[in-house]
């Protein structure tokens, strides 16, 4: 009886857990309009007003949204567009059916600089997204010149009051800048500054120096509206964001579980260790994407038997998050390879970061072996060479120049891609490391 009850409850919680995981997966992995906006009220209203004027008054505009990666540029834009559509829906109820059409006709060619690698492809994509290609069959894709003339003609025909406004969103705007002559940008901005079809051009970029990249004619035509997203919140707000991001929504099916979960989150946010973890992360990077990553790691530890995330989970997640990837590789090396790395470290110290070759490393290693012959097995040179090449493959050492057929492998100049502090840390945690090696690592003169 009690067993069955237990089973039922666990089943129930299993369902809850899968629900929870689903919610957080959506929240942390999809950077969609569903996510909430934090600390960008002003930018939001600016952008919303701008787009509203385009739709309602047919006013042409151009703007750039600038902010570091992960600062929520796309989220902001998606939010604005979603609300704009909803607003049109609202107005539809108030006025007539007109704006429903307006909603559909508001085209959003999302152009990403990574996909549209030149103006030709971009033009085709615009034509496709404006659904103009069926006007003339596939002839329009005849040549680049025809295509451009076609599109310009199409846009020139409209006017402010009668044509449907078009919103151009240029993702990765900085990549469009590198197109030849900046033809696309010039034409888009030129249309936005002349009495043609109303267009609004919005560029998203993370480069602060974007305006310096624009050609003077293009720059003059750009209206110089810049919306900066800066992650300009302090730690208190960061904690609030953390709470909001980790708490379950009110419409969660199992209310009791949601209550329990949210209480736990409240506790966590007041916990000292959790605050330390968050403080540490906050000091490193303020963007929400890294917070999402941390929470993702923590939440993925949630199971049926461990239904609520704890401070330890977060700590562990933070540890994983901040671990040094190269030092981790060193943990998996053999003693011989570690010895070689130590030899390189000493060479770096002696020659002040000058490049070395295999022969030098081998000599250094030989010196160590001669001193400590009793504890270390003297490997043959080809064996050492093999170990050295393994390090090369792991990219712990890097050749200065490409290996050529003529140069002997032993004399290729190399550089070590590890800092001495990384090596020392790795040795600390290296299991069963011979004491002699540790001593040698600490000082090249330990035998004296």
């Amino acid at each position: 009886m009690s067993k069955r009850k237990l089973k039922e409850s666990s089943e129930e919680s299993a369902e809850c857990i899968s629900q929870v995981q689903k919610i957080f997966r959506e929240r942390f992995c999809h950077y969609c309009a569903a996510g909430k906006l934090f600390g960008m009220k002003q930018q939001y209203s600016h952008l919303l007003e701008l787009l509203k004027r385009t739709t309602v008054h047919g006013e042409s505009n151009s703007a750039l949204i600038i902010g570091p990666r992960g600062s929520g540029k796309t989220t902001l834009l998606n939010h604005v567009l979603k609300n704009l559509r909803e607003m049109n829906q609202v107005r539809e109820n108030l006025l007539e059916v007109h704006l429903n059409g307006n909603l559909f006709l508001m085209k959003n060619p999302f152009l990403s600089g990574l996909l549209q690698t030149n103006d030709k492809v971009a033009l085709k994509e615009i034509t496709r997204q404006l659904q103009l290609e069926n006007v003339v069959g596939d002839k329009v894709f005849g040549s680049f010149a025809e295509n451009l003339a076609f599109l310009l003609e199409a846009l020139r025909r409209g006017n402010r009051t009668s044509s449907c406004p078009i919103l151009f969103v240029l993702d990765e705007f900085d990549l469009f800048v590198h197109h030849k002559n900046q033809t696309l940008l010039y034409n888009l901005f030129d249309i936005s500054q002349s009495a043609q079809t109303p267009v609004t051009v919005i560029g998203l970029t993370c480069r602060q120096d974007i305006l310096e990249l624009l050609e003077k004619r293009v720059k003059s035509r750009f209206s110089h509206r810049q919306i900066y997203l800066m992650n300009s919140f302090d730690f208190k707000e960061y904690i609030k964001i953390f709470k909001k991001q980790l708490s379950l929504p009110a419409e969660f099916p199992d209310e009791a579980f949601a209550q329990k979960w949210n209480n736990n989150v409240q506790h966590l946010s007041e916990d000292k260790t959790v605050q330390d973890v968050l403080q540490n992360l906050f000091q490193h990077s303020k963007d929400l994407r890294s917070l999402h990553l941390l929470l993702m790691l923590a939440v993925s530890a949630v199971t049926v038997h461990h239904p609520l995330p704890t401070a330890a989970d977060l700590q562990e997640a933070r540890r994983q998050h901040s671990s040094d990837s190269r030092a981790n590789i060193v943990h998996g090396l053999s003693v011989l390879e570690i010895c070689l790395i130590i030899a390189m470290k000493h060479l770096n110290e002696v020659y002040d970061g000058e490049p070395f070759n295999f022969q030098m490393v081998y000599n250094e290693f030989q010196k160590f072996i001669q001193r400590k012959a009793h504890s270390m097995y003297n490997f043959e040179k080809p064996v050492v060479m093999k170990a050295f090449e393994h390090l090369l493959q792991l990219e712990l050492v890097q050749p200065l120049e490409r290996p050529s057929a003529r140069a002997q492998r032993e004399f290729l100049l190399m550089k070590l891609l590890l800092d001495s502090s990384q090596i020392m840390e790795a040795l600390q945690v290296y299991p069963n490391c011979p004491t002699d090696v540790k001593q040698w690592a600490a000082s090249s003169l330990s035998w004296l």
Partner: protein
Amino acid sequence: MNTRQQSKLIYSWYGKPLGSDRKLRTSQYKGILITSESTKTETCIQLGDFILVEGVNADQPYVAQLMDLYEDGAQHKRAVVQWFCRLEEIPQNKRKLLKREISAQEVFFDQILGYDTDIAAETIIKSIVVLPLHLSEELPTITLNKEQTFYVKQSWDGKCFKVLSPDTFSKLKEANKKRSVITNSSKAFIPSDILTPVKKETESVLRSATKPKTADMEIESKHSASKSSLAKERHSQRVANNDIKTPTARKKLELSSPMRSKSRLLGCEVLGLLDDDCDATAPLKPSATKRKVKFTSDISGSPPKIPCSNDKSKSTCESAEHHQRFSDTIRLSPYTKVKDFSEKDKNLHEKGDILSPVGYQKPSSQSPVLTPRSRRTCVQKTSALIAEQISMLDQEDFLSGSDSSYSSSSEEEEDDDVPCTPEKKTKSSRIFSTPKSSRKSAVHTPAKTLKKTPLQGTPRTPRNATPEIPRRIQAAQEPASVLEEARLRLHVSAVPESLPCREEEFQDIYNFVESKLIDGTGGCMYISGVPGTGKTATVHEVIRCLQQAAENDELPPFQFVEINGMKLTDPHQAYVQILEFLTGQKVTATHAAVLLAKLFSTPGPKRKTTVLIVDELDLLWTRKQNVMYNLFDWPTQKHSKLIILAIANTMDLPERIMMNRVASRLGLTRMSFQPYTYKQLQQIVSSRLKGVKAFEEDAVQLVSRKVAALSGDARRCLDICRRATEICEFSNQKRTPEIVRMAHVTEAIDEMFSSPYVNAIRNASLHEQIFLKAILAEFRRAGVEEATVQQIYHHHVALCRMEGLQSPTVSEIMAICSRLGACRLLLVEASNKYLHMRVRLNLGQDDVMYALREE
């Protein structure tokens, strides 16, 4: 079509000089012979004949009457002509003065004085027929040869249309008569007038469903194969490639025509048409009969491509052979149809075999025996057409067989068909709107230009369809408040009534273009100035004023073409765009260059001056600079009549990037637009805001001064003002609207001009800031403005220890470095160098220090 392959045409005088003028050393002639070397044909054109003259557009040669022929002192053959103008040549805005539909065949007696009536005789293409008609007269029914026949009802003097004066009318009539006499007398002249009789078949015909389609396709192919314009046809003649004009090809076309119309015709409309036809016949009868008497033998509506005409002339056996071949094809034609028509075939066959030189004239009264069923009438009509075609073929056949001289006449003469066929459809306006009429006529005249098709309102040629952005369903809201009104006016795209502060420049450019227009010469002007100083706007304003003046007849009319270097994908595309603007042709860049060079270097009669604006000139630069060279070379040609206004940003562009020979051709007429001063900017803004109290006076001044100090770019100034209105509106949404004050303007300026770097650094995370500090420390230590990540890392760790922070791992440092690099606060190398990646600051050390110190 490759113009280089054209065979040469030789122009020689016909007969002895009539008289000569000693002083001018000219001698006059009564006719000119055009001999084509390749086809060995000769055409004689006499005084008073109507001719086609090569024009700008190969598809639309000019129509004229030959008034005088003479040879000038320099042995050049010259011709004096009386022009007729096509509807296309009349400005769009004047066409509505006509208040009626105009057929493509109608021309106007040209009384504009501006045109040069003295042309080179070599530009004459061939002779045609122009018939004077009274205004009330309907246009004669469809002729088989539309290309060759024009009608004139009214005269055009550049301002209004007038009815032909009786004097002119009689003169034109006279010319026609005289011409026919002449042609009769001259052995090489047999104009083939159409006197195809009326034939209406009352029998019903079962029609096959499949046939029309194939027929259609045949037509299409035929159309594409044969160059469809007169002038092009002439080209093809020059090419001496007569292979296309085989009898079989022609037969196909003829055969298919009725099938095609059958598939398109609607019965009820046909009924109406038939009635119309009967009515229309009446007034035309007299002239028709008159002609009939003269040329009873010429019946066929021979389209220009008669096989026999182009071959070796005057050989009877040859023509007999032709006759043989031809009759074969005719025999074939009815038989092919036999499959389709169950009971009609015999009848048809009979008709086909009748070789009646007069043409059988069945009374058209037969046609009213029509059943109300549309299907049947349609079929009837079709069968009538079939029969007609067959009979025409027969008659042609007869002609070529019986009249040996027929084959000797060249293509030109054959084109001179006088249409007197009353049974063909009148071109009533009703038919114009239906696609079938054009199809039908296209079938009858294979040499018809495609140009005419859109004129008749047919929904064809998707190629030329220009796309359109869908219209918005709800109308755009009009500005409600003062601020919104101001914003609308401040938008760069809003066109102000006048351009303040550019009056001087405006006047200079205006004077330059005006003087060139009046002189009828060409010239270049180079206009420079930094962006946003109103260069393009001023030039457009000049053009607008000039067009206004031209419309009011204060100036000779001109064509206006604009190209923009930025809107071209390749400098050579400039040729394509110019040619398309001028003539509507679409060709490749190299061919366009050839055509344009020809256009501007040869003296074109009736050609208007062209004003060409070349915006963003510097982008037309190529390594050999041939585009620029050509552009600036054309105006220097004697007959080019080309005025170029070149616009670019840099003042010394000609010296900097142009070769000497290009710069020299550009000339020294230059103008430089200075950046606006703050007073000018202030004036611009206040002139736009006239009548709208939205700005404080001082606020406008602040913006103007700020912009003038930075760039003098009017666009920037307007943008800032516009942004200021938004800020103003936003800041007091609840309260009553107020005007834009200093605070709003300052905010807008700060928003637009503030350096983003300082803000970005202040909002960076703690470790990012420490990393920047570490960079500064490393720079100071090394004395070099470049450091590797490893070096910076050591400093970073040291700084962290000082601050009592947990020192970051190398991975985290790399992440920070790449983040700052993506924002371009730092310039970093490729990340595969890991610790040895070199780092530089993208802004001054002082800026970084300033940004970091504040906290």
